[in-house]
């Protein structure tokens, strides 16, 4: 019996190894950001207590997007690691075009995370937030939004038909579900039956729902298989 055969077969499966790597990366990012926020709060540099549920939810989503975007970006810098981490079933090095496509995907996710985190962070670090600083953060968000929109459009152009199908279905399902939920909540609010939501609350719910729907549609269509 060889040493390798003593280990369970799934350990040599590239998909399992990629999942294990992502799990470890998730743990490190989660622990790292949690302890950093804790230290900043103890030092009085950041206010976490008193943040609303939508601030916490969007902060969590932003952290996930930043971590995922950074991982994809770093993995795509090497053609050797790009496909081994991002498409473990492929079993060969990424072409320059594939590596650049992944790099762009990572960048778009990273920018989305930064844009989502910026308003929450600005309000947590500066209480009250000065008008000039708020305006400067807003100008930065608008600039990033423009860059990210162009990045998303180019990604659409560069994607093959399966990815486009997943994007289209995610958009359609999200719109159908969220416009219904928005209407029902607004009606309940108008009738004094439900508490008022802020636009930031709605954005946090929209982002969380969109990511969840996107994951479900991707799995259903076999993207990531």
């Amino acid at each position, binding site marked *: 019996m060889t040493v390798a055969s003593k280990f369970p077969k799934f350990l040599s499966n590239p998909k399992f190894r990629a999942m294990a790597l992502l799990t470890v990366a998730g743990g490190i990012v989660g622990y790292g950001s949690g302890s950093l926020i804790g230290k900043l709060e103890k030092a009085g540099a950041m206010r976490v207590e008193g943040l609303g549920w939508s601030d916490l939810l969007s902060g969590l989503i932003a952290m996930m997007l930043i971590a995922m975007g950074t991982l994809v970006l770093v993995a795509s810098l090497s053609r050797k690691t790009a496909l081994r981490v991002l*498409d473990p*079933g*492929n*079993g*060969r090095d990424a072409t320059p075009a594939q590596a650049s496509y992944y790099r762009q995907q990572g960048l778009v996710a990273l920018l989305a995370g930064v844009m989502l985190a910026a308003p929450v962070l600005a309000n947590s670090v500066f209480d009250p937030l000065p008008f000039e600083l708020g305006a400067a953060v807003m100008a930065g968000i608008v600039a990033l939004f423009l860059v990210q929109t162009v990045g998303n459009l180019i990604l659409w152009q560069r994607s*093959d*038909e*399966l*990815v486009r*199908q997943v994007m289209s279905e995610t958009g359609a399902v999200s719109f159908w579900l969220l416009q219904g939920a928005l209407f029902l909540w607004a009606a309940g609010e108008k009738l004094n039956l439900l508490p008022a939501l802020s636009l930031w609350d709605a954005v946090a719910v929209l982002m969380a729902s969109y990511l969840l729907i996107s994951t479900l549609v991707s799995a*259903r*269509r*076999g*993207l*990531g*298989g």
Partner: protein
Amino acid sequence: MKNRLKVLRAERDWSQADLADRLEVSRQTINALETGKYDPSLPLAFKIARLFGQSIETIFQDEA
């Protein structure tokens, strides 16, 4: 919709990545087609048919 993509690919000893390169799509698209999770667009179906030198209906069969 059922298809014979996996069989046709295996007959030529091509990997999913090889077929993906020839069709200019991602390997994941080939996997999704072979597992029946995704049906190709008409242009991609024609491309597949041309690549294997067969008609669309011999590669793809309607399950109804």
